[in-house]
């Protein structure tokens, strides 16, 4: 089964980190990435720029509106994600538990066999 590990956090607390604190955080992500590779779960991952650099696009008929910022103002914002493939959601939750993150949402991915042709 494939899962998305969606990493949410308070961007303010990231901004407030010292260079050393950020280096520690990246080292923890690298260690997590190595563990993912060893476990055979790794299917990719990305870190996002802060949500103040986001644009949100909505189309209404022919009219397209583009607004600055994320689609919803929430205390925690999506900061990055990992894609993993593992036997069960329990394994995915175990992977999420190992992440150096405030909140991780684990979402199963729709497999190609589940989509209508």
């Amino acid at each position, binding site marked *: 089964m*494939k899962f*998305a590990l969606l990493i949410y956090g308070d961007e303010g607390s990231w901004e407030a980190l010292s260079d050393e604190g950020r280096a520690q955080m990246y080292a923890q992500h690298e260690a997590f990435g190595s563990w993912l590779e060893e476990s055979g779960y790794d299917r990719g991952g990305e870190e996002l720029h802060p949500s103040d650099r986001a644009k949100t696009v909505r189309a209404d008929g022919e009219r397209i509106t583009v607004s600055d910022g*994320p*689609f919803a103002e*929430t205390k925690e914002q999506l900061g990055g994600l990992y894609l993993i493939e593992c036997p069960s959601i329990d394994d995915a939750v175990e992977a999420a538990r190992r992440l150096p993150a405030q909140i991780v949402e684990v979402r199963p991915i729709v497999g190609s066999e589940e989509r209508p042709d």
Partner: protein
Amino acid sequence: MRYLLLIYADERAQADVSPDQIERLMKDWWEYEGWLRETGWHRAGEALQPIATGTTVRVRDGQTLTTDGPFAETKEQLGGFYLIECDDLDQAIEAAARLPAAPYGSIEIRPIQEFEVPEPGS
């Protein structure tokens, strides 16, 4: 530049669509994906199962707390994403506006944080 296109839409609205509508909608998605691949911008993309299948994990003081469902209750929910690589934000907006979900949902475009990978041995 690489961008993540985050596709948000109201899951409840989609629960009411007929099999015929689903078939038409899927055709729109396959056409979109074909177009995205032709442009050379496509890097990855996935559809997520509904939020009811999600689990949210928080670690506090070494304790793992898990709750069912998404981390935040919003009118529209994350249903999938595309990772694209294109020249600039204008192209990313074009790719977002062409998404079959754009007329009924919201597409959040987020630039990817790029890292300089150190040379081995440096």
